[in-house]
C-alpha cells in the first residue's frame, strides 16, 4: 500500500558566514526573520516547502533541516567566522541531498527538484577545488535530484563565479555596483521569500517550475560579463 501525502519543494539556503560578512550579520539575520514571518502568513505555500538553512565559512553549520515553516516561529541566528569555502558548502549539500529526498519520500511525499539559494560576498577560497563537488551536485547522472541553484553575489563576489555556480545563466545574479550591501542582503531574502511563496503556489496550481524572483538591485550576472 502506498499513500501520497503531496508534493514538496526542498529549499536550501546557503548563506556565506565568512568573516567579511560580519558588518552585515544584522541584515542576514533580519532577512531570515522576515522570511520566517512571511511564511507563517502563507500557510498554503509554506505547506509545500521544506527549508534547510546552512551557513558556510571554513566549514558548514546546519541551522535547520527540512523545516516546515508553518510551525517554525524562531529563525536561526547566523554568525560569521573564517574563510569562504565553496567546496565545503557544495559537499554538504551533495552529501545530504539523497538522505533528505529519501526521508521525505519515506514520509509519503513526492519531491520536486530541490532549489538552492546561495548568497555570497566574496571569492571562494583560492586553492580549494570546489568545482568537483559542484559538478557532482549538478550532474543528474550522479545526483538524480540535482538541484536548481540560484547564485546571488554581493559586494566582492565575481559575476563569472556566480555564473559557474548557478545551474542556468538566468539564475546567476549580482548586486549592482555601489549597491548598499545591507539592502542587497535584504532584497535577497525578499526575493527568496517571494520565490518560495510563488513556487509553493505554483505547486498548488499544478505547475511545478521553480519561480525565481530577481532581487531588487540585482542584475543578471550574464549582463556583467
Amino acid at each position: 500500500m502506498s499513500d501520497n501525502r503531496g508534493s514538496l519543494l526542498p529549499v536550501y539556503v546557503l548563506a556565506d558566514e565568512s568573516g567579511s560578512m560580519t558588518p552585515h550579520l544584522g541584515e542576514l539575520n533580519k532577512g531570515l526573520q522576515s522570511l520566517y514571518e512571511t511564511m507563517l502568513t502563507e500557510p498554503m505555500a509554506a505547506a509545500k516547502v521544506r527549508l534547510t538553512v546552512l551557513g558556510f565559512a571554513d566549514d558548514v553549520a546546519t541551522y535547520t533541516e527540512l523545516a516546515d515553516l508553518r510551525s517554525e516561529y524562531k529563525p536561526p541566528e547566523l554568525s560569521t567566522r573564517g574563510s569562504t569555502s565553496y567546496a565545503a558548502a557544495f559537499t554538504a549539500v551533495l552529501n545530504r541531498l539523497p538522505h533528505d529526498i529519501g526521508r521525505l519520500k519515506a514520509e509519503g511525499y513526492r519531491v520536486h527538484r530541490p532549489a538552492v539559494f546561495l548568497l555570497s560576498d566574496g571569492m571562494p577560497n583560492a586553492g580549494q577545488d570546489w568545482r568537483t563537488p559542484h559538478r557532482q551536485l549538478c550532474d543528474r547522472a550522479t545526483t538524480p535530484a540535482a538541484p536548481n541553484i540560484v547564485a546571488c553575489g554581493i559586494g566582492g563576489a565575481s559575476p563569472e563565479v556566480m555564473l559557474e555556480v548557478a545551474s542556468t545563466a538566468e539564475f546567476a545574479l549580482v548586486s549592482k555596483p555601489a549597491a548598499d550591501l545591507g539592502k542587497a542582503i535584504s532584497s535577497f531574502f525578499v526575493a527568496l521569500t517571494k520565490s518560495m511563496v510563488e513556487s509553493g503556489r505554483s505547486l498548488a496550481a499544478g505547475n511545478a517550475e521553480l519561480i525565481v524572483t530577481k532581487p531588487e538591485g540585482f542584475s543578471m550576472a550574464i549582463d556583467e560579463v
Partner: protein
Amino acid sequence: MPEPYGPDPRDEGLGISDWERSDGWRADFDPPAPADSPAPPALPAWPRPRPRPQYDPPEDPRPAPPGAPPSDPQRFAGPRAGEPRADDLPGGGPHGGPHDRPHNAARAEPAVPDWSVVEVGTPGHVFEARPPAGSPYRPDTVVDGWSTDLVTMRLACVRGYGHRYSGTPREDDCAVAVHEATGSVVFAVADGVSAAPQSATGAALASRGAVTDLLRQLDADVPALDWTHVVRTAAWSLVARAAGGREPESAYAEEAERLYATTLVAGVVRADRYGVPEVHLVQVGDSGAWLLDRGDGRYRRLLATKDSHGREVLSSGVTPLPRVPSPLAQQSVALGPSSVLLVGTDGFGDALGDGEGAVGRLFHRGLSAPPPVLGFAHLLDFSRETFDDDRTLLAVWPRHLLPEPRR
C-alpha cells in the same frame, strides 16, 4: 429491537449515511479495511431527500359550523396510519431514502446536514475563501449529475484551496452533454495552466469546444469519431479567442498559448453493438482517466499522467493546448458492470496517486454507487494538506446501479 436498517457496526462513528447501503447491494463491494491501516476518512452524512415538509394550516378564525367534527391538529401532520411516507416508497429518494428513521420521527424538524469538510489524513489550513478577482463571473464550484438509459453521470469542478486562499479564480473547467439521437454521453475536462494569465477562459473554451465538436460529429453520424478534429477544434477555439474576430494567424496561436494554455481530456460513453457502454478518450496534457473496480477498489490508469514512480524527483512538464501533440494519446475501453469511469484533472489525480492510499480508499467507498449530486462535489472537495489545486472529476457508472426506474 434494532432497526432493520440500523447502523452497520463497521461504520460505527464514521458518519456514513444510509444512502450507501439502502440498496442492499453495497455491502457486497465493501472492501475490508486493512488491519493495520488508520481509521479511514469519514464519508459525509450527505444532505439527502426529505419528505415534503408537513403543512400546518393556520387556524381558521371562523367559527366551526354546527355539527362539524372538532379540529384535528394531526390532520396535516403526516400520512395516516398504514400509509407509506414518501421516503419509505421504493425510489422515494433518489439515492435511498432514510429507511432507518423511526416512524414517530415524522413530525421532527428536518435536521441540518453535516456540512463539515471531508478530511483525509492531515487536513489543510482552515480559512474562509476570498472572492476570485476579475471578471467574468467564475463560480467556486460547478456540479452536475443525471442518468440516461445507459449510464449514470456525476460531475464536479471545485476551486482549489490554494485559489480560494489567494482569491484567484478556478482554472479547471468541464462540460458534459447527451447526444439525444444516439444516447451517447460526451464530456471534457480541462485544467488551465496557471502560468497563462487567462487559463480559466482557456479551460472553458477548450472543454466546450471539444464537447460541441463531438456532438456535431455524432449528429453527422460519422463512421468513426475523428479525435484529432476534436482536439483541433478545442485548440482552434483558443486561437480564435486570441484573434478576436480577426483572421487567425500564427501570431495569435502564440498569443493563445501565452494567455489560454490548458490541458484537455475529452471523451464519449456510448453503447456498443451489444448494448454495453464503451468509453473513448483523447488526452492533451496531464489530466487523467481511470477505471475504478467497485469490487476490489483498484484503479486502472487509462491515460498516462505525471508521477514520480521510477524517478528521483517529480517531473511536471506539460504540453498543453493550443499545441496539438502528434500522435494524440487515445484510449478505448469497455465500461463493465463493476467499473466506474473516472476522468479528472491532476488536482484529483495527484491526490489519488496509484489509488492505494487514503484518497483511493475514500473514493472507492464513496463512489461504489452514484452518490447524490451535491454529495459528489462535497466528496471531491476533501481537505488534505498540500493538495490544494483545483479539482475536476467526472464519474460514470452503468445505469443499473440506481434503484429508480428508468423514465
